C-alpha cells in the first residue's frame, strides 16, 4: 500500500509549485482589488500540504483551516473553480458564498477550509466516525495551526478520537506564529506531548522537507488504515508572508520569515538536481503551474456575479427533498 500510494518527488514538486503559483497570483489579484475580503497565504508551508495529501486517496476526507488554499489544491480541488470561488463568482465551487476561507469540494472529500480556529478538528473526528461506522476504509485528516492547540476543542477532539480509535490523522502545521504572536507566548505544551497525553502516537517532522513529510505521512496513514486509531503529525514550518495579505508585520523581523534555504520548493529542487534529475524536468514544474494558473485566472475573470436569490434559496435544502 505504502509503495503503491507514494508519490514521486516530481509529483510533489508539481503540487508545491501549483500551490505557490496559485497563491502568489492570489496575492497579486488581492493587491489589485480582484479578490475581495482577506486571504491567508501558505507560502513556505507547501511541503506540508503536498506531502500529507499525497499520502491520501480521493475517498479520504479532509478538514482544513483559514490557511487552506494549499490543503485544498493538494487534495485535488479543481483549479478553475478554486479561483472562481475566491474571486467571488457564481461558478466557484461554493457559488461565491464562501470565498478563500471556505473552499470545499465534496467530489474530492474536501470538507472545507474553516474560518474558525480549531473547528476542523471535531469535524474530522466526526468524519472519521462515519468512515469507521460505514467501514469505508477511508480515513479523515485535519490540518490546523499551532494556534489551534490552544483551543479547548482540541482536547475534546483528541480525547474522543483516541477513546473510539477513530481513523483520523491530526496534522499540526507549526509555523511559530498565531496571527501576530509567537507560539512561545501562546502555548505552554509541546505539541507532540499534547497528543501523547491522549494516547495518540505522535511524530514531528521538518515540514519544509516535503520528502520527509510525505514519508512520515505514508507511515501514519498506513497505521491508521490498519486500525491503529488516530495519529498526530507535527510539521515544523515557516510562514513566509504576513498572517494575512497586507499585514504590515511590525511584530517581527522580515528575516525571521524569509530564510530562503528553508523554502520547501527550493530544497526539493536542489535535492532533485543532486539526484541527477535533468534541469528542464525540474523547471517544467513551475512553468506548467504558471500556465495552469494563468488559464484558471483567465477563466475566473470571465465568471459571473452570483445571483442573490439563488443564495437566499440555498439556506435550506429544497423543500421537495424533505419528506
Amino acid at each position, binding site marked *: 500500500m505504502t509503495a503503491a500510494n507514494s508519490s514521486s518527488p516530481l509529483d510533489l514538486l508539481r503540487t508545491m509549485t501549483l500551490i505557490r503559483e496559485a497563491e502568489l497570483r492570489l496575492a497579486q489579484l488581492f493587491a489589485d482589488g480582484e479578490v475581495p475580503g482577506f486571504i491567508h497565504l501558505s507560502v513556505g508551508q507547501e511541503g506540508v500540504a503536498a506531502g500529507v495529501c499525497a499520502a491520501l486517496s480521493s475517498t479520504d*476526507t479532509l*478538514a482544513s483551516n483559514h490557511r487552506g488554499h494549499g490543503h485544498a489544491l493538494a487534495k485535488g480541488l479543481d483549479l478553475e473553480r478554486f479561483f472562481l*470561488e475566491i474571486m467571488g463568482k457564481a461558478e*466557484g*465551487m*461554493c*457559488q*461565491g*458564498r*464562501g470565498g478563500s476561507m*471556505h473552499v*470545499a*469540494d*465534496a467530489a474530492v472529500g474536501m*470538507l*472545507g477550509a*474553516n*474560518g*474558525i480556529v480549531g*473547528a476542523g*478538528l*471535531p*469535524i*474530522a*473526528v*466526526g*468524519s*472519521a*466516525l*462515519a*468512515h*469507521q*461506522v*460505514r467501514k*469505508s476504509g477511508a480515513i*479523515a485528516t485535519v490540518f490546523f495551526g499551532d494556534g489551534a492547540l490552544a483551543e*479547548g*476543542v482540541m482536547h*475534546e*477532539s483528541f*480525547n*474522543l478520537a483516541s*477513546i*473510539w480509535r477513530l481513523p483520523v490523522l491530526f496534522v499540526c502545521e507549526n509555523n511559530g506564529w498565531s496571527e501576530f504572536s509567537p507560539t512561545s507566548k501562546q502555548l505552554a505544551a509541546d505539541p507532540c506531548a499534547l497528543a501523547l497525553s491522549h494516547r495518540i502516537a505522535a511524530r514531528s517532522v521538518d515540514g519544509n522537507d516535503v520528502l520527509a513529510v510525505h514519508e512520515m505521512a505514508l507511515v501514519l496513514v498506513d497505521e491508521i488504515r490498519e486500525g491503529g486509531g488516530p495519529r498526530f503529525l507535527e510539521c515544523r514550518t515557516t510562514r513566509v508572508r504576513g498572517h494575512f495579505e497586507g499585514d504590515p508585520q511590525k511584530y517581527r523581523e522580515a528575516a525571521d520569515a524569509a530564510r530562503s534555504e528553508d523554502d520547501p520548493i527550493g530544497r526539493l529542487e536542489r535535492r532533485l538536481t543532486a539526484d541527477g534529475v535533468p534541469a528542464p524536468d525540474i523547471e517544467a514544474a513551475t512553468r506548467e503551474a504558471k500556465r495552469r494558473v494563468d488559464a484558471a485566472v483567465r477563466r475566473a475573470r470571465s465568471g459571473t456575479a452570483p445571483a442573490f436569490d439563488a*443564495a437566499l434559496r*440555498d*439556506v*435550506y*435544502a429544497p423543500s421537495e*427533498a*424533505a*419528506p
Partner: protein
Amino acid sequence: MSEVRFGQAINRALADAMAADENIVIFGEDVAAPGGPFGVTRGLLDRFGAERVRDTPISEAAIVGAAVGAAMSGLKPIVEIMFMDFVTLSMDALVNQAAKARFMFGGQYALPMVVRLPHGGGINAGPQHSQCLEAWLTHVPGLKVACPATVSDAYALTRAAIADPDPVILVENKSLYAVKGALPEPLPSVAIGTADIARPGRDATIVTYGAMRGMALAAADMLAKDGVETEVIDLRSLQPWDESAVLASLARTHRLVIAHEAVEAFGVGAEIAARMADVGFDELDGPIVRVGAPFMPVPFAKELEARYRPDAARIVEGVRRTLA
C-alpha cells in the same frame, strides 16, 4: 392507539428510524449504556449495538462538531446535549458549522443531523439546568427548530427531524418526559413548520409551544367558564414557524396572546408579535400580549421558580388584557 409517555414516544421514533436506516447513529453523554439522563434512549444500545449507539465523554463541542463531520460524510447523526443550558459549549459547531455548511459550500453538502436539547424548568434544577434558549437557535439561518408538546407530536416531529436533510434542533421540555398520552396507529407524521390547532375558539388566540400548550389549554378552560372562547395554536415548529396558521387564527379572533416558558424579552414571541403587527395589522382589535418568564435567571427555590414560570393564570390575565 396506545398510551405511552412522551419520552417513550421519542424513544420509539428513534428506534423506528434506526431500524429503517443503518446510517443513523446516536451519541451523547450517557445515552448508550445508561439509556440517557432522562431515559429517552433506553434500550437502543442493546437493539442497535455499540457501533451505532455510543456514550461520549463530556465534550459538548466535540459531540456537535463530530455530528457535523459525520453528517458531511454519510451518516445521519442524532446527538443529545444533556441539558439545553450546555449548548453554550456547542455553539460554534451549531452556529458557524452546521447552520452554514450547505450555504457556505454552495450546496455541495447536506447536513442531516439532529440535536436533541432538553429544556425548561419546573424541577428546581436552578439557573444552569432549566433554561429555554430556543430563541438563540431560531435566530440562526440554516437551523431548524422544533418543540413537540404531545406524545403524538413527540413521535412525529422526531421522525420528521431525522428525515430532514438539514440540521434540526429538537427542543424537548423536561417536564413533559413522564407525561402520558395517546400514540395513534398508524403512527403519526407531521411536517416541520406546521402548527396544530389544539383548541378552536373565536374570541382570542393563544399561540404557544412545548410544555406551555398544557398551560394554554388550562387557561382556555378557565376563560370558557366566563364564556370566552380561546383558540390555542401549538406551533410545534419554531423555525420555520407556521405564520399562515397564526394569521388565519388571528383573522378569526382578532386578539393575540403569545405564551412561552422562555424569557419574554427578545424571545420567540417577539418575532411572532412583530410579524402579526405587520402582516396581521388590519386584523388586530387589541394589543398583542406576550406571556413569558421575567427577565431574570431561572431561580432554584420552589417558591421562586413557581412564581418565575408562566402559568395558566398569567395566560388568562394576558387574554383579558387584550380583550379589555
